[in-house]
């Protein structure tokens, strides 16, 4: 197989999800790990630095030819929804969804553990909406 994200892995997995470490190396033209991605979710928080990183990432992803590049606003507080909408409009990418700031997530991070069942319900609902958005965007593409 040419790469872990090459076509063959689809024989074994319906969904292959890559959590990329910070940095943009994986989007380089030569064999970047994400060159084969069908969908790229660019996660932002309400901070200028994360927005600037997102902007650079979106440019590279489009150069690579990743067919669907979407923004995700995370850790949103009151008023951040509009902020994320404006940023995505500026970068010309659809906003796949907004995830609210959540105390359960902060506490699970502090423990270094999985978010327990029943915890972070608003976050879980936002995640479902984002995946529904992705599924909807893939309709008509057929099984990958």
């Amino acid at each position, binding site marked *: 197989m040419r790469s*872990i994200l090459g076509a063959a892995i689809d024989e074994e997995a319906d*969904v292959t999800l890559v*959590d*990329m470490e910070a940095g943009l190396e994986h989007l380089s033209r030569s064999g970047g790990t994400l060159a084969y991605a069908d969908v790229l979710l660019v996660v*932002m928080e309400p901070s200028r630095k994360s927005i600037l990183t997102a902007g650079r990432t979106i440019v590279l992803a489009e150069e690579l030819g990743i067919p669907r590049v979407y923004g995700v606003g995370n850790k949103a507080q009151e008023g951040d929804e509009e902020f994320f909408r404006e940023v995505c409009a500026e970068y010309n990418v659809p906003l796949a969804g907004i995830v609210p700031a959540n105390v359960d997530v902060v506490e699970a991070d502090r423990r270094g553990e999985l978010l327990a069942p029943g915890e972070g319900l608003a976050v879980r609902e936002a995640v479902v909406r984002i995946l529904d958005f992705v599924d909807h965007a893939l309709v008509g593409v057929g099984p990958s």
Partner: protein
Amino acid sequence: MKLGIVGKGGVGKTTLSALFAQTYAARGLRVLAIDTDSNPNLAHSLGLTTEQADDVPLLPRSVVVGRGEGSLTPAELLSQYGAVTPSSVTLLHAMRITQAGAG
């Protein structure tokens, strides 16, 4: 379907990746999650203990970026390098590309 999650460090990529993976798995899909961080953060978020996370073998660089020498089938690759997590998501641990290059 191949889904990449990117963003500046600290924005919550790993937490969201784990929730995306679990949600797809709960929908009955076969989910493969690939952690590219040298610290096994995604492993923890998917419910593995530190000890279990340390036991997940690192994928060789040739498999990650591909140089033509990879002869494993996808099924062999998953059985040799994959770890099944409590949420039934299969985890692969890929080494950091920058680190591999620096050797």
